[in-house]
Protein backbone atom coordinates (compact mmCIF):
# COMPACT_ATOMS: atom_id res chain seq x y z
CA UNK A 1 0.00 0.00 0.00
CA UNK A 2 1.51 3.33 -1.01
CA UNK A 3 1.95 5.86 1.79
CA UNK A 4 2.16 9.65 1.98
CA UNK A 5 3.19 12.35 4.40
CA UNK A 6 0.92 15.38 4.17
CA UNK A 7 2.95 18.37 5.41
CA UNK A 8 0.26 21.05 5.69
CA UNK A 9 -0.48 23.52 8.50
CA UNK A 10 -4.10 24.01 7.54
CA UNK A 11 -5.96 21.28 9.43
CA UNK A 12 -9.00 21.36 7.16
CA UNK A 13 -7.03 21.01 3.97
CA UNK A 14 -4.79 18.32 5.45
CA UNK A 15 -7.92 16.45 6.52
CA UNK A 16 -9.47 16.59 3.03
CA UNK A 17 -6.19 15.47 1.40
CA UNK A 18 -5.97 12.60 3.85
CA UNK A 19 -9.57 11.59 3.18
CA UNK A 20 -8.95 11.65 -0.55
CA UNK A 21 -5.78 9.59 -0.36
CA UNK A 22 -7.49 7.04 1.87
CA UNK A 23 -10.22 6.78 -0.76
CA UNK A 24 -7.49 6.00 -3.32
CA UNK A 25 -6.19 3.23 -1.14
CA UNK A 26 -3.19 5.05 0.31
CA UNK A 27 -2.17 5.51 3.91
CA UNK A 28 -1.62 9.17 4.75
CA UNK A 29 -0.01 10.82 7.78
CA UNK A 30 -0.66 14.50 8.53
CA UNK A 31 2.20 16.66 9.86
CA UNK A 32 1.04 20.15 10.88
CA UNK A 33 4.29 22.04 11.37
CA UNK A 34 7.61 22.50 9.60
CA UNK A 35 9.96 21.51 12.40
CA UNK A 36 8.11 18.25 12.99
CA UNK A 37 8.01 17.49 9.29
CA UNK A 38 11.75 18.14 8.88
CA UNK A 39 12.69 15.84 11.76
CA UNK A 40 10.29 13.04 10.81
CA UNK A 41 11.27 13.07 7.13
CA UNK A 42 14.97 13.01 7.97
CA UNK A 43 14.47 10.18 10.43
CA UNK A 44 12.37 8.27 7.86
CA UNK A 45 15.12 8.68 5.28
CA UNK A 46 17.88 7.40 7.55
CA UNK A 47 15.73 4.57 8.86
CA UNK A 48 14.82 3.64 5.28
CA UNK A 49 11.09 3.99 5.73
CA UNK A 50 10.42 6.94 3.45
CA UNK A 51 6.80 7.24 2.37
CA UNK A 52 5.99 6.81 -1.31
CA UNK A 53 5.10 10.52 -1.58
CA UNK A 54 5.45 13.77 0.34
CA UNK A 55 2.81 16.49 -0.16
CA UNK A 56 4.61 19.64 0.94
CA UNK A 57 3.16 23.07 1.76
CA UNK A 58 5.76 25.88 1.67
CA UNK A 59 4.64 28.42 4.29
CA UNK A 60 4.74 26.50 7.54
CA UNK A 61 5.17 27.35 11.20
CA UNK A 62 8.65 26.42 12.45
CA UNK A 63 10.93 25.34 9.60
CA UNK A 64 9.75 26.54 6.20
CA UNK A 65 8.75 24.21 3.39
CA UNK A 66 11.72 25.55 1.44
CA UNK A 67 14.14 24.24 4.06
CA UNK A 68 12.39 20.90 4.03
CA UNK A 69 12.56 20.78 0.24
CA UNK A 70 16.31 21.54 0.32
CA UNK A 71 16.80 18.67 2.77
CA UNK A 72 14.77 16.29 0.58
CA UNK A 73 16.73 17.38 -2.48
CA UNK A 74 20.03 16.76 -0.73
CA UNK A 75 18.85 13.16 -0.20
CA UNK A 76 17.67 12.82 -3.81
CA UNK A 77 14.02 12.63 -2.81
CA UNK A 78 12.67 15.28 -5.18
CA UNK A 79 11.11 12.60 -7.40
CA UNK A 80 8.62 11.74 -4.67
CA UNK A 81 7.85 15.26 -3.47
CA UNK A 82 4.79 17.24 -4.56
CA UNK A 83 4.86 20.89 -3.56
CA UNK A 84 1.39 22.26 -2.94
CA UNK A 85 1.30 25.97 -2.06
CA UNK A 86 -0.88 29.07 -2.25
CA UNK A 87 2.24 31.20 -2.86
CA UNK A 88 2.11 31.59 -6.63
CA UNK A 89 5.60 33.07 -6.95
CA UNK A 90 7.27 30.25 -5.01
CA UNK A 91 5.35 27.62 -6.98
CA UNK A 92 6.64 29.15 -10.22
CA UNK A 93 10.16 29.18 -8.79
CA UNK A 94 10.02 25.47 -7.93
CA UNK A 95 8.51 24.57 -11.30
CA UNK A 96 11.51 26.41 -12.76
CA UNK A 97 13.74 24.18 -10.62
CA UNK A 98 12.03 21.14 -12.17
CA UNK A 99 10.22 20.17 -9.01
CA UNK A 100 6.61 18.97 -9.18
CA UNK A 101 4.53 21.81 -7.80
CA UNK A 102 0.84 22.72 -7.77
CA UNK A 103 -0.81 26.05 -7.08
CA UNK A 104 -3.61 26.06 -4.51
CA UNK A 105 -6.54 25.66 -4.94
CA UNK A 106 -5.77 22.32 -6.58
CA UNK A 107 -7.83 19.70 -8.36
CA UNK A 108 -7.95 16.52 -6.23
CA UNK A 109 -7.85 14.44 -9.42
CA UNK A 110 -4.55 16.03 -10.40
CA UNK A 111 -3.14 15.37 -6.94
CA UNK A 112 -4.22 11.73 -7.26
CA UNK A 113 -2.66 11.35 -10.71
CA UNK A 114 0.67 12.81 -9.63
CA UNK A 115 0.86 10.70 -6.47
CA UNK A 116 -0.10 7.56 -8.39
CA UNK A 117 2.70 8.42 -10.80
CA UNK A 118 5.10 8.54 -7.84
CA UNK A 119 3.77 5.16 -6.66
CA UNK A 120 4.25 3.53 -10.08
CA UNK A 121 7.77 4.93 -10.35
CA UNK A 122 8.71 3.69 -6.87
CA UNK A 123 7.19 0.29 -7.65
CA UNK A 124 9.33 0.02 -10.80
CA UNK A 125 12.47 1.06 -8.92
CA UNK A 126 11.64 -0.92 -5.81
Amino acid sequence: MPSAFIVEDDRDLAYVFQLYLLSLGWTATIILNGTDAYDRLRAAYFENRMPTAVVLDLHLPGRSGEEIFDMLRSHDLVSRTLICSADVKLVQKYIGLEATALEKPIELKELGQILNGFAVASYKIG
Partner: protein
Amino acid sequence: LNAPWKVARSAKYSLLSVTKKIKNYFTVPDTFELDELRMRRVLNFILIMLMVIALISLLLTFVWGDTPAQLLSDPSTVSIIASSGIAGLLIFGLFLLNKWRGSPKNLVGWLLVVVLIVAITFSDSPRQLTNGRSLLSWALPVLVAALVLPPASVFVADGLVTIMLISMSTNFPHDLNLWAILTLLALSLLFWIGMEIANRAIRTARNESQKTFAILQGVAEGIVVVDQHQNVIVSNLVAKHLAGGLLDDLVKNASVNQDVEGRILSFTWSEVSGVGRVAIIRDITREIEVERAKDALLGVVSHELRTPLSVISAAAQMIPLSPNMAGELATRIHANTQRMRVLIGDLLDQAQIQAGALRLRQESFSVASLSGSVSEMMADDANDKNLAFTVRSSSDLPEKLVGDKDRLLQVLINLAGNAIKFTDPGGQVDVIFERHNEQSWKITVRDTGIGIPPQRIPDIFQPFRRASDYATRRHQGVGLGLSIVKQLVELMKGNIDVESKVGKGTTFTVTLPLEAG
Protein backbone atom coordinates in the same frame (compact mmCIF):
# COMPACT_ATOMS: atom_id res chain seq x y z
CA LEU B 1 64.48 54.16 -4.42
CA ASN B 2 61.44 55.34 -6.24
CA ALA B 3 60.47 53.51 -9.39
CA PRO B 4 61.08 55.51 -12.59
CA TRP B 5 57.37 55.76 -13.42
CA LYS B 6 56.72 57.14 -9.95
CA VAL B 7 59.40 59.78 -10.49
CA ALA B 8 57.91 60.53 -13.91
CA ARG B 9 54.45 60.75 -12.43
CA SER B 10 55.50 63.03 -9.58
CA ALA B 11 57.41 65.17 -12.11
CA LYS B 12 54.30 65.36 -14.23
CA TYR B 13 52.22 66.42 -11.26
CA SER B 14 54.73 69.01 -10.06
CA LEU B 15 54.92 70.37 -13.63
CA LEU B 16 51.14 70.49 -13.74
CA SER B 17 50.99 72.31 -10.43
CA VAL B 18 53.66 74.81 -11.59
CA THR B 19 51.75 75.56 -14.82
CA LYS B 20 48.58 75.90 -12.78
CA LYS B 21 50.30 78.37 -10.45
CA ILE B 22 51.61 80.39 -13.42
CA LYS B 23 48.17 80.40 -14.99
CA ASN B 24 46.64 81.54 -11.70
CA TYR B 25 49.20 84.33 -11.42
CA PHE B 26 48.23 85.72 -14.81
CA THR B 27 44.47 85.47 -14.19
CA VAL B 28 42.18 87.92 -12.41
CA PRO B 29 40.61 86.12 -9.42
CA ASP B 30 36.83 85.77 -9.75
CA THR B 31 36.09 87.66 -6.54
CA PHE B 32 34.69 90.67 -8.42
CA GLU B 33 31.15 91.43 -9.52
CA LEU B 34 30.46 89.92 -12.97
CA ASP B 35 30.63 93.10 -15.14
CA GLU B 36 33.71 94.36 -13.29
CA LEU B 37 35.33 90.95 -13.59
CA ARG B 38 34.80 90.92 -17.35
CA MET B 39 36.38 94.40 -17.73
CA ARG B 40 39.28 93.55 -15.45
CA ARG B 41 39.91 90.40 -17.47
CA VAL B 42 40.02 92.36 -20.75
CA LEU B 43 42.33 94.89 -19.07
CA ASN B 44 44.46 92.05 -17.77
CA PHE B 45 44.84 90.69 -21.29
CA ILE B 46 45.74 94.11 -22.72
CA LEU B 47 48.31 94.73 -19.94
CA ILE B 48 49.90 91.33 -20.50
CA MET B 49 50.09 92.02 -24.26
CA LEU B 50 51.71 95.42 -23.58
CA MET B 51 54.24 93.84 -21.21
CA VAL B 52 55.09 91.25 -23.87
CA ILE B 53 55.51 94.02 -26.49
CA ALA B 54 57.77 95.99 -24.12
CA LEU B 55 59.81 92.88 -23.41
CA ILE B 56 60.13 91.96 -27.09
CA SER B 57 61.17 95.49 -28.09
CA LEU B 58 63.84 95.46 -25.36
CA LEU B 59 65.11 92.08 -26.53
CA LEU B 60 65.10 93.13 -30.18
CA THR B 61 67.11 96.21 -29.32
CA PHE B 62 69.77 93.99 -27.75
CA VAL B 63 69.67 91.12 -30.26
CA TRP B 64 69.61 92.96 -33.54
CA GLY B 65 71.09 96.27 -32.48
CA ASP B 66 74.72 97.07 -31.77
CA THR B 67 76.72 95.60 -28.89
CA PRO B 68 75.46 96.60 -25.43
CA ALA B 69 78.47 98.87 -24.94
CA GLN B 70 77.75 100.80 -28.14
CA LEU B 71 74.03 100.97 -27.33
CA LEU B 72 74.73 102.40 -23.89
CA SER B 73 77.12 104.98 -25.27
CA ASP B 74 74.42 106.48 -27.56
CA PRO B 75 72.09 108.81 -25.58
CA SER B 76 69.15 108.21 -27.96
CA THR B 77 69.25 104.41 -27.61
CA VAL B 78 69.71 104.76 -23.85
CA SER B 79 66.57 106.87 -23.72
CA ILE B 80 64.66 104.28 -25.82
CA ILE B 81 65.81 101.44 -23.54
CA ALA B 82 65.04 103.45 -20.42
CA SER B 83 61.59 104.50 -21.60
CA SER B 84 60.73 100.92 -22.67
CA GLY B 85 61.88 99.70 -19.26
CA ILE B 86 59.94 102.36 -17.39
CA ALA B 87 56.82 101.71 -19.51
CA GLY B 88 57.20 97.96 -18.88
CA LEU B 89 57.49 98.49 -15.11
CA LEU B 90 54.56 100.91 -15.11
CA ILE B 91 52.39 98.43 -16.97
CA PHE B 92 53.49 95.65 -14.60
CA GLY B 93 52.40 97.89 -11.73
CA LEU B 94 49.03 98.41 -13.39
CA PHE B 95 48.79 94.64 -13.96
CA LEU B 96 49.30 94.00 -10.21
CA LEU B 97 46.88 96.77 -9.26
CA ASN B 98 44.25 95.36 -11.62
CA LYS B 99 44.37 91.96 -9.88
CA TRP B 100 44.29 93.49 -6.39
CA ARG B 101 40.88 93.20 -4.76
CA GLY B 102 41.26 96.55 -2.97
CA SER B 103 41.75 98.62 -6.12
CA PRO B 104 38.75 100.86 -7.00
CA LYS B 105 36.65 99.91 -9.99
CA ASN B 106 37.80 101.53 -13.30
CA LEU B 107 40.92 103.09 -11.68
CA VAL B 108 43.40 100.93 -13.61
CA GLY B 109 41.43 101.47 -16.84
CA TRP B 110 41.66 105.25 -16.48
CA LEU B 111 45.34 105.06 -15.51
CA LEU B 112 46.03 102.98 -18.63
CA VAL B 113 44.21 105.49 -20.85
CA VAL B 114 46.25 108.34 -19.31
CA VAL B 115 49.51 106.37 -19.65
CA LEU B 116 48.72 105.65 -23.30
CA ILE B 117 47.95 109.35 -24.03
CA VAL B 118 51.19 110.40 -22.32
CA ALA B 119 53.17 107.72 -24.18
CA ILE B 120 51.67 108.74 -27.53
CA THR B 121 52.40 112.43 -26.77
CA PHE B 122 56.11 111.59 -26.47
CA SER B 123 56.22 109.00 -29.24
CA ASP B 124 56.64 111.41 -32.15
CA SER B 125 57.01 115.08 -33.04
CA PRO B 126 53.96 117.33 -32.48
CA ARG B 127 53.66 117.91 -36.20
CA GLN B 128 53.53 114.20 -37.01
CA LEU B 129 51.12 113.62 -34.12
CA THR B 130 48.67 116.34 -35.16
CA ASN B 131 48.93 116.21 -38.96
CA GLY B 132 51.22 113.35 -39.94
CA ARG B 133 51.97 109.65 -39.74
CA SER B 134 51.20 109.22 -36.03
CA LEU B 135 47.74 110.75 -36.18
CA LEU B 136 46.03 107.36 -36.10
CA SER B 137 47.72 106.37 -32.82
CA TRP B 138 45.26 108.68 -30.95
CA ALA B 139 42.54 106.13 -31.70
CA LEU B 140 44.31 103.67 -29.39
CA PRO B 141 43.38 105.27 -25.99
CA VAL B 142 39.78 105.72 -27.21
CA LEU B 143 39.61 102.05 -28.23
CA VAL B 144 41.12 100.94 -24.92
CA ALA B 145 38.64 103.12 -23.01
CA ALA B 146 35.79 101.48 -24.96
CA LEU B 147 37.08 98.01 -24.09
CA VAL B 148 37.95 98.37 -20.41
CA LEU B 149 35.72 101.20 -19.11
CA PRO B 150 31.97 101.85 -19.15
CA PRO B 151 30.88 102.73 -22.77
CA ALA B 152 30.33 106.47 -22.13
CA SER B 153 34.00 106.77 -21.03
CA VAL B 154 35.03 106.83 -24.72
CA PHE B 155 33.84 110.44 -24.87
CA VAL B 156 36.03 111.40 -21.89
CA ALA B 157 39.01 109.67 -23.52
CA ASP B 158 38.14 111.41 -26.81
CA GLY B 159 37.98 114.74 -24.93
CA LEU B 160 41.46 114.18 -23.47
CA VAL B 161 42.82 113.28 -26.91
CA THR B 162 41.18 116.41 -28.42
CA ILE B 163 42.79 118.59 -25.71
CA MET B 164 46.17 117.03 -26.58
CA LEU B 165 45.60 117.64 -30.32
CA ILE B 166 44.65 121.27 -29.68
CA SER B 167 47.49 121.91 -27.24
CA MET B 168 50.02 120.38 -29.67
CA SER B 169 49.00 122.67 -32.50
CA THR B 170 51.97 125.04 -32.45
CA ASN B 171 50.40 127.46 -34.89
CA PHE B 172 46.84 127.54 -33.49
CA PRO B 173 44.30 127.77 -35.09
CA HIS B 174 45.89 127.42 -38.59
CA ASP B 175 47.30 123.92 -38.14
CA LEU B 176 44.37 122.65 -36.04
CA ASN B 177 43.36 119.31 -37.59
CA LEU B 178 39.58 119.67 -37.26
CA TRP B 179 38.96 116.64 -39.50
CA ALA B 180 41.02 114.46 -37.22
CA ILE B 181 39.09 115.72 -34.16
CA LEU B 182 35.74 115.07 -35.86
CA THR B 183 36.84 111.67 -37.14
CA LEU B 184 37.95 110.66 -33.62
CA LEU B 185 34.62 111.88 -32.28
CA ALA B 186 32.80 109.81 -34.91
CA LEU B 187 35.00 106.83 -34.01
CA SER B 188 34.15 107.34 -30.31
CA LEU B 189 30.48 107.40 -31.18
CA LEU B 190 30.85 104.13 -33.10
CA PHE B 191 32.76 102.52 -30.24
CA TRP B 192 30.13 103.71 -27.77
CA ILE B 193 27.27 102.30 -29.86
CA GLY B 194 29.17 99.03 -30.37
CA MET B 195 29.95 98.63 -26.68
CA GLU B 196 26.39 99.52 -25.60
CA ILE B 197 25.03 96.84 -27.94
CA ALA B 198 27.64 94.32 -26.77
CA ASN B 199 26.96 95.07 -23.09
CA ARG B 200 23.23 94.70 -23.53
CA ALA B 201 23.68 91.42 -25.37
CA ILE B 202 25.94 90.18 -22.59
CA ARG B 203 23.43 91.23 -19.92
CA THR B 204 20.53 89.58 -21.75
CA ALA B 205 22.51 86.39 -22.21
CA ARG B 206 23.49 86.47 -18.55
CA ASN B 207 19.88 86.99 -17.44
CA GLU B 208 18.81 84.06 -19.59
CA SER B 209 21.54 81.84 -18.21
CA GLN B 210 20.63 82.95 -14.67
CA LYS B 211 17.03 81.91 -15.32
CA THR B 212 18.18 78.56 -16.64
CA PHE B 213 20.49 78.24 -13.65
CA ALA B 214 17.62 79.02 -11.26
CA ILE B 215 15.45 76.38 -12.94
CA LEU B 216 18.34 73.90 -12.86
CA GLN B 217 18.88 74.46 -9.14
CA GLY B 218 15.17 74.63 -8.36
CA VAL B 219 14.06 71.29 -9.76
CA ALA B 220 13.67 68.45 -7.30
CA GLU B 221 15.54 66.00 -9.51
CA GLY B 222 19.28 65.81 -9.99
CA ILE B 223 20.39 66.97 -13.44
CA VAL B 224 23.78 66.34 -14.93
CA VAL B 225 25.15 67.03 -18.40
CA VAL B 226 28.17 65.11 -19.69
CA ASP B 227 30.18 65.70 -22.85
CA GLN B 228 31.26 63.10 -25.41
CA HIS B 229 34.15 62.04 -23.18
CA GLN B 230 31.83 61.37 -20.21
CA ASN B 231 33.09 64.43 -18.34
CA VAL B 232 30.55 66.29 -16.21
CA ILE B 233 30.06 69.77 -17.68
CA VAL B 234 26.93 70.88 -15.80
CA SER B 235 25.33 69.51 -12.65
CA ASN B 236 22.85 70.92 -10.15
CA LEU B 237 23.02 70.81 -6.35
CA VAL B 238 20.52 67.94 -6.12
CA ALA B 239 22.66 65.80 -8.43
CA LYS B 240 25.75 66.51 -6.32
CA HIS B 241 23.83 65.82 -3.11
CA LEU B 242 22.37 62.55 -4.40
CA ALA B 243 25.67 61.32 -5.80
CA GLY B 244 27.54 62.19 -2.60
CA GLY B 245 30.83 63.03 -4.35
CA LEU B 246 30.65 60.09 -6.75
CA LEU B 247 28.99 61.93 -9.64
CA ASP B 248 32.00 61.65 -11.97
CA ASP B 249 32.12 57.87 -11.50
CA LEU B 250 28.36 57.34 -11.63
CA VAL B 251 27.90 59.01 -15.03
CA LYS B 252 30.49 56.69 -16.55
CA ASN B 253 28.36 53.71 -15.56
CA ALA B 254 25.71 52.87 -18.11
CA SER B 255 23.22 51.12 -15.82
CA VAL B 256 19.85 52.74 -15.25
CA ASN B 257 19.60 52.10 -11.50
CA GLN B 258 22.67 52.46 -9.34
CA ASP B 259 23.21 51.72 -5.68
CA VAL B 260 24.89 54.62 -3.86
CA GLU B 261 25.57 54.12 -0.16
CA GLY B 262 22.40 52.10 0.36
CA ARG B 263 20.19 54.35 -1.75
CA ILE B 264 19.00 53.48 -5.24
CA LEU B 265 19.38 56.21 -7.84
CA SER B 266 17.66 56.04 -11.20
CA PHE B 267 19.34 57.65 -14.23
CA THR B 268 17.21 58.68 -17.20
CA TRP B 269 19.52 59.57 -20.09
CA SER B 270 18.75 61.57 -23.21
CA GLU B 271 20.99 62.76 -26.04
CA VAL B 272 21.33 66.47 -26.76
CA SER B 273 23.03 67.02 -30.11
CA GLY B 274 26.09 69.19 -29.96
CA VAL B 275 26.28 69.03 -26.17
CA GLY B 276 26.40 65.39 -25.09
CA ARG B 277 24.08 63.48 -22.82
CA VAL B 278 21.77 64.71 -20.08
CA ALA B 279 20.77 62.54 -17.13
CA ILE B 280 17.91 63.10 -14.72
CA ILE B 281 18.76 61.51 -11.39
CA ARG B 282 16.08 60.48 -8.93
CA ASP B 283 16.29 58.76 -5.56
CA ILE B 284 13.91 55.83 -5.97
CA THR B 285 14.82 54.00 -2.74
CA ARG B 286 11.45 54.72 -1.16
CA GLU B 287 9.51 53.85 -4.32
CA ILE B 288 11.26 50.51 -4.53
CA GLU B 289 10.58 49.85 -0.84
CA VAL B 290 6.90 50.66 -1.34
CA GLU B 291 6.84 48.47 -4.45
CA ARG B 292 8.38 45.57 -2.51
CA ALA B 293 5.98 46.08 0.40
CA LYS B 294 3.08 46.11 -2.05
CA ASP B 295 4.33 42.89 -3.65
CA ALA B 296 4.72 41.25 -0.25
CA LEU B 297 1.26 42.41 0.78
CA LEU B 298 -0.29 41.15 -2.43
CA GLY B 299 1.48 37.82 -1.84
CA VAL B 300 0.12 37.51 1.69
CA VAL B 301 -3.41 38.51 0.72
CA SER B 302 -3.41 36.14 -2.25
CA HIS B 303 -2.08 33.35 -0.02
CA GLU B 304 -4.64 34.02 2.70
CA LEU B 305 -7.49 33.97 0.18
CA ARG B 306 -6.23 30.90 -1.66
CA THR B 307 -5.82 28.80 1.50
CA PRO B 308 -9.51 28.74 2.56
CA LEU B 309 -10.51 28.62 -1.09
CA SER B 310 -8.45 25.47 -1.57
CA VAL B 311 -10.20 23.83 1.41
CA ILE B 312 -13.60 24.80 0.02
CA SER B 313 -12.67 23.53 -3.44
CA ALA B 314 -11.08 20.27 -2.23
CA ALA B 315 -13.88 19.49 0.23
CA ALA B 316 -16.51 20.15 -2.45
CA GLN B 317 -14.69 17.76 -4.82
CA MET B 318 -14.51 15.21 -2.02
CA ILE B 319 -18.26 15.11 -1.23
CA PRO B 320 -19.27 13.00 -4.29
CA LEU B 321 -16.32 10.65 -3.66
CA SER B 322 -17.36 9.91 -0.06
CA PRO B 323 -20.99 10.92 0.42
CA ASN B 324 -21.03 9.52 3.94
CA MET B 325 -18.56 12.25 4.97
CA ALA B 326 -20.67 15.03 3.42
CA GLY B 327 -21.74 16.51 6.76
CA GLU B 328 -18.20 16.79 8.06
CA LEU B 329 -16.95 18.21 4.76
CA ALA B 330 -19.78 20.76 4.63
CA THR B 331 -18.85 21.96 8.13
CA ARG B 332 -15.31 22.57 6.96
CA ILE B 333 -16.51 24.34 3.82
CA HIS B 334 -18.65 26.61 5.98
CA ALA B 335 -15.81 27.35 8.41
CA ASN B 336 -13.58 28.34 5.53
CA THR B 337 -16.17 30.57 3.89
CA GLN B 338 -16.39 32.30 7.29
CA ARG B 339 -12.62 32.70 7.27
CA MET B 340 -12.74 34.28 3.82
CA ARG B 341 -15.62 36.50 4.86
CA VAL B 342 -13.62 37.82 7.85
CA LEU B 343 -10.55 38.42 5.71
CA ILE B 344 -12.49 40.25 3.01
CA GLY B 345 -14.29 42.25 5.72
CA ASP B 346 -10.96 43.22 7.29
CA LEU B 347 -9.48 44.25 3.93
CA LEU B 348 -12.51 46.38 3.15
CA ASP B 349 -12.49 47.94 6.64
CA GLN B 350 -8.80 48.75 6.33
CA ALA B 351 -9.32 50.31 2.89
CA GLN B 352 -12.29 52.33 4.18
CA ILE B 353 -10.40 53.55 7.25
CA GLN B 354 -7.38 54.50 5.14
CA ALA B 355 -9.57 56.40 2.70
CA GLY B 356 -11.25 58.17 5.64
CA ALA B 357 -14.57 56.80 4.42
CA LEU B 358 -15.56 54.80 7.50
CA ARG B 359 -18.41 56.48 9.38
CA LEU B 360 -19.38 55.49 12.92
CA ARG B 361 -22.95 55.50 14.14
CA GLN B 362 -23.89 57.45 17.26
CA GLU B 363 -26.81 55.67 18.84
CA SER B 364 -27.89 54.49 22.21
CA PHE B 365 -27.13 50.86 23.09
CA SER B 366 -27.36 48.83 26.26
CA VAL B 367 -24.13 47.68 27.88
CA ALA B 368 -25.83 44.44 28.85
CA SER B 369 -26.68 43.60 25.22
CA LEU B 370 -23.08 44.35 24.14
CA SER B 371 -21.60 42.13 26.84
CA GLY B 372 -24.23 39.49 26.07
CA SER B 373 -23.27 39.46 22.39
CA VAL B 374 -19.57 39.08 23.16
CA SER B 375 -20.25 36.30 25.60
CA GLU B 376 -22.53 34.49 23.17
CA MET B 377 -20.19 34.78 20.18
CA MET B 378 -16.98 33.76 21.92
CA ALA B 379 -18.19 31.16 24.42
CA ASP B 380 -18.03 28.25 21.96
CA ASP B 381 -14.45 29.04 20.88
CA ALA B 382 -13.39 29.31 24.55
CA ASN B 383 -15.16 26.06 25.37
CA ASP B 384 -13.48 24.26 22.46
CA LYS B 385 -10.11 25.21 23.94
CA ASN B 386 -11.21 24.40 27.48
CA LEU B 387 -10.70 27.98 28.70
CA ALA B 388 -12.48 29.73 31.54
CA PHE B 389 -14.19 32.67 29.79
CA THR B 390 -16.06 35.45 31.64
CA VAL B 391 -17.69 38.72 30.58
CA ARG B 392 -18.56 41.13 33.44
CA SER B 393 -19.81 44.66 33.58
CA SER B 394 -19.38 46.84 36.64
CA SER B 395 -22.40 48.49 38.25
CA ASP B 396 -20.85 51.98 38.09
CA LEU B 397 -21.56 52.11 34.34
CA PRO B 398 -24.81 53.67 33.02
CA GLU B 399 -27.21 51.10 31.61
CA LYS B 400 -27.14 52.74 28.21
CA LEU B 401 -24.29 54.36 26.35
CA VAL B 402 -23.98 56.19 23.04
CA GLY B 403 -21.75 54.82 20.30
CA ASP B 404 -21.50 52.35 17.41
CA LYS B 405 -22.40 49.03 18.98
CA ASP B 406 -21.54 46.91 15.93
CA ARG B 407 -18.05 48.40 15.62
CA LEU B 408 -17.51 48.04 19.39
CA LEU B 409 -18.52 44.41 19.06
CA GLN B 410 -16.03 44.04 16.19
CA VAL B 411 -13.27 45.43 18.46
CA LEU B 412 -14.24 43.07 21.27
CA ILE B 413 -14.49 39.97 19.07
CA ASN B 414 -11.06 40.74 17.68
CA LEU B 415 -9.47 41.23 21.09
CA ALA B 416 -11.28 38.31 22.75
CA GLY B 417 -10.64 36.12 19.69
CA ASN B 418 -6.91 36.85 19.92
CA ALA B 419 -6.95 36.18 23.66
CA ILE B 420 -8.59 32.78 23.10
CA LYS B 421 -6.28 31.95 20.19
CA PHE B 422 -3.11 32.68 22.15
CA THR B 423 -4.11 31.06 25.46
CA ASP B 424 -3.38 27.41 26.06
CA PRO B 425 -6.09 25.02 27.31
CA GLY B 426 -6.81 25.44 31.02
CA GLY B 427 -6.16 29.16 30.90
CA GLN B 428 -8.49 32.08 31.51
CA VAL B 429 -9.87 34.95 29.42
CA ASP B 430 -11.82 37.84 31.01
CA VAL B 431 -13.67 40.74 29.42
CA ILE B 432 -14.55 43.55 31.90
CA PHE B 433 -16.65 46.65 31.26
CA GLU B 434 -16.21 49.39 33.90
CA ARG B 435 -16.06 53.10 34.53
CA HIS B 436 -12.63 54.69 34.13
CA ASN B 437 -13.34 58.22 35.45
CA GLU B 438 -15.97 60.97 35.13
CA GLN B 439 -15.50 61.34 31.39
CA SER B 440 -14.60 57.86 30.25
CA TRP B 441 -15.25 54.16 30.53
CA LYS B 442 -13.03 51.22 29.70
CA ILE B 443 -13.07 47.65 28.45
CA THR B 444 -10.35 45.28 29.61
CA VAL B 445 -9.58 42.03 27.77
CA ARG B 446 -7.21 39.94 29.88
CA ASP B 447 -5.76 36.49 29.20
CA THR B 448 -3.30 34.09 30.79
CA GLY B 449 -1.82 33.22 27.41
CA ILE B 450 1.62 33.04 25.81
CA GLY B 451 2.18 36.84 25.97
CA ILE B 452 3.92 39.12 23.47
CA PRO B 453 7.72 39.55 23.47
CA PRO B 454 8.59 43.20 24.38
CA GLN B 455 10.36 43.79 21.04
CA ARG B 456 7.18 42.92 19.12
CA ILE B 457 4.85 45.18 21.09
CA PRO B 458 5.69 48.40 19.17
CA ASP B 459 4.48 46.95 15.86
CA ILE B 460 1.49 44.83 16.85
CA PHE B 461 -0.86 47.60 15.75
CA GLN B 462 0.84 48.01 12.37
CA PRO B 463 -1.30 46.91 9.41
CA PHE B 464 -0.11 43.90 7.39
CA ARG B 465 2.75 43.21 9.82
CA ARG B 466 2.61 39.49 8.98
CA ALA B 467 4.01 40.26 5.53
CA SER B 468 7.48 40.42 7.10
CA ASP B 469 7.46 36.94 8.70
CA TYR B 470 5.59 35.29 5.91
CA ALA B 471 7.88 32.30 5.28
CA THR B 472 7.69 30.81 8.75
CA ARG B 473 4.35 32.23 9.75
CA ARG B 474 3.00 30.90 13.00
CA HIS B 475 -0.54 32.16 12.66
CA GLN B 476 -3.12 32.63 9.99
CA GLY B 477 -4.23 36.00 8.72
CA VAL B 478 -2.63 39.02 7.15
CA GLY B 479 -2.22 40.85 10.45
CA LEU B 480 -4.99 43.38 10.05
CA GLY B 481 -7.11 42.61 13.13
CA LEU B 482 -5.28 44.68 15.75
CA SER B 483 -4.56 47.46 13.30
CA ILE B 484 -8.28 47.80 12.56
CA VAL B 485 -9.06 47.61 16.30
CA LYS B 486 -6.70 50.49 17.03
CA GLN B 487 -8.00 52.58 14.15
CA LEU B 488 -11.62 51.97 15.16
CA VAL B 489 -10.89 52.88 18.78
CA GLU B 490 -9.17 56.07 17.62
CA LEU B 491 -12.14 56.91 15.38
CA MET B 492 -14.27 56.56 18.54
CA LYS B 493 -11.91 59.14 20.12
CA GLY B 494 -10.68 56.46 22.47
CA ASN B 495 -7.35 54.91 23.31
CA ILE B 496 -5.93 51.37 23.39
CA ASP B 497 -3.08 50.13 25.59
CA VAL B 498 -1.40 46.79 25.88
CA GLU B 499 0.53 45.21 28.72
CA SER B 500 2.09 41.80 28.30
CA LYS B 501 4.47 39.36 29.94
CA VAL B 502 5.78 36.40 27.99
CA GLY B 503 4.37 33.20 29.49
CA LYS B 504 2.06 35.11 31.87
CA GLY B 505 -0.50 36.76 29.66
CA THR B 506 -1.66 39.91 27.91
CA THR B 507 -4.08 42.69 28.85
CA PHE B 508 -5.60 45.06 26.30
CA THR B 509 -7.34 48.12 27.74
CA VAL B 510 -9.66 50.20 25.57
CA THR B 511 -10.63 53.58 27.06
CA LEU B 512 -13.58 55.41 25.49
CA PRO B 513 -15.32 58.74 26.14
CA LEU B 514 -18.41 58.24 28.26
CA GLU B 515 -21.75 59.44 26.93
CA ALA B 516 -24.82 58.09 28.67
CA GLY B 517 -27.65 57.19 26.27
